[in-house]
């Protein structure tokens, strides 16, 4: 009798243990789920770059170039569609694919590739628009060189435009370099960072130093470079980040007029490395291993800050949505499991005041409003919208 009782008790305990050991709050999640609003952009776009050209005016490189105008705080974005091969406003002729874009010198610069693989670099007309009728200009390029990155960096009001270039030799692997257009210029020239084995994945200016993350012309590893001059004439290899041999996915430098000395580096397996004193000391936020994954999250992009204190930055990840990096407390993953952004690869982030745009791979463009504390707002047209 006692044996049966204890056996029964054992089964009950086991059942309770099973029931309470695997209990995510599913119903509590569903009861607060909000339907994500959608807009008129195709929902499965892959976003190559995003630029803000004027207050509330956004240009998105996603194959073609899409232009959107935000109606105001808590408003909606009106996107100009690219409906057919012959109806592509704001785009250069020839069904070109735009893979890089930046605002520089009052114009938008765009790197393009034709369907046959011919690369080109355009400077927009005054609208701004890459359409020939709107006064766009094609910038002569070194034959065979493709644009992989466009960034404006340097002391205001005279920044430079940096161009990441890739050239395919007759045989063997691509060779990469960093070029630049000096302030108010219209032609580019190479910096000293040439003959690299890996592409340039980030360029910035922290108020004192120019920064770049790219490969090396010595070996196949990754490097972080600094230079006091815009042409990286005598670059310094930053050796104290702690990154080691990991792949560098991106480098972001905060606006030096507001947050000087802040540099954030995103890596493939080692998390995020950041400095607030121009590289004097470095902090490290280790990579999250998301639930259900056996691998650390790979971080692709960074932007910010999104709060008024300058403490919180947004970090895009490969397949796990985005994280918030607090310079004081580390990485926290965006928690809403009910929307597609949670499992998207966020490769581009643009912070425009309280408006944040996130470009993903194959899951389109997302937009939200963040409050002064760096938290996503929840009002109508303020929570994440799948544009």
């Amino acid at each position: 009798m006692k044996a049966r009782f204890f056996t029964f008790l054992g089964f009950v305990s086991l059942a309770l243990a099973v029931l309470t050991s695997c209990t995510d709050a599913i119903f509590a999640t569903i009861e607060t789920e909000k339907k994500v609003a959608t807009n008129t952009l195709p929902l499965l776009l892959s976003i190559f770059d995003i630029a803000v050209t004027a207050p509330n005016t956004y240009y998105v490189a996603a194959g073609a170039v899409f232009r959107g105008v935000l109606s105001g705080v808590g408003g909606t974005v009106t996107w100009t569609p690219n409906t057919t091969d012959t109806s592509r406003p704001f785009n250069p002729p020839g069904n070109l694919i735009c893979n890089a874009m930046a605002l520089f010198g009052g114009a938008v610069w765009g790197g393009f590739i034709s369907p046959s693989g011919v690369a080109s670099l355009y400077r927009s007309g005054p609208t701004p628009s890459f359409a020939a009728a709107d006064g766009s200009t094609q910038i002569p390029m070194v034959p065979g060189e493709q644009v992989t990155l466009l960034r404006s960096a340097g002391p205001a009001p005279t920044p430079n435009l940096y161009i990441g270039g890739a050239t395919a030799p007759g045989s063997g692997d691509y060779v990469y370099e960093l070029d630049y257009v000096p302030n108010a210029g219209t032609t580019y020239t190479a910096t000293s960072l040439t003959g690299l084995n890996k592409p340039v994945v980030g360029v910035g200016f922290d108020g004192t130093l120019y920064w770049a993350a790219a490969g090396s012309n010595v070996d196949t590893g990754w490097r972080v470079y600094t230079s006091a001059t815009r042409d990286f004439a005598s670059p310094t290899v930053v050796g104290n980040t702690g990154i080691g041999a990991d792949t560098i996915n991106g480098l972001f430098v905060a606006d030096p007029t507001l947050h000087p000395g802040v540099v954030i580096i995103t890596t493939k397996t080692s998390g995020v490395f950041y400095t607030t004193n121009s590289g004097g000391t470095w902090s490290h936020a280790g990579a999250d291993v998301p639930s259900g994954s056996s691998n650390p999250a790979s971080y692709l992009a960074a932007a910010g800050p999104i709060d008024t204190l300058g403490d919180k930055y947004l970090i895009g990840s490969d397949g796990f949505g985005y994280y918030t990096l607090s310079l004081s407390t580390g990485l926290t993953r965006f928690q809403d499991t009910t929307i597609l952004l949670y499992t998207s690869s966020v490769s581009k982030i643009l912070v425009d005041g309280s408006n944040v745009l996130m470009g993903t791979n194959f899951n389109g463009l997302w937009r939200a409003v963040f409050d002064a504390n760096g938290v996503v707002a929840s009002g109508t047209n303020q929570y994440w919208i799948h544009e």
Partner: protein
Amino acid sequence: MMACAAAPIFAADNQAPGASQYALGDQTMSINAGLFVPLFLLPSGVVFLAGSPPQLSLGAVGSLSWAAYVSPVIRLGVDVAGNFTLSPNGNVLLMLPFIAKAAYVFTFYPFELPISLGVGMNIVKYTSLSSIDLLLRPGASFYWIYNSSWSFGLNAYYWFDMQFNTSPSSTRYGNFLEFSLSALYHF
């Protein structure tokens, strides 16, 4: 003589009203499919079908059942079911319960009315979240006895899903209804 030999067969298909034709050891299997209706959550009081869009949509349910008679009117068995509904963002809420069931069968030939109570565990999956809940499922069925082997009918079950959580504020009790068609095989 031939009529007498055939008498037992006719007796099985022409049962007296109120009398069970089953005995200890008889078994049944059934296949069921139908509509899954989300009702509300406790203690939050959220009504699933309220709002535009609703928190959960109407869904579909299917199940397989086996039972054995332990007396002419009581059968015990197990059910394995599966159902799905959709959230406002098109996420699928999946449930896979394994239920131990007891039924008391009222027979009003050619109809029978099993009243049942099921208890089991419900495996619930939603996006990357998963849970194993305790499920109570009382209900009733109504069958037309077609012949000694087959019956066809309807089920109506109430699902009371207890989703406990280590954080008490996240514990919820889900309430659902199932209306399904059933084909029952006696053997």
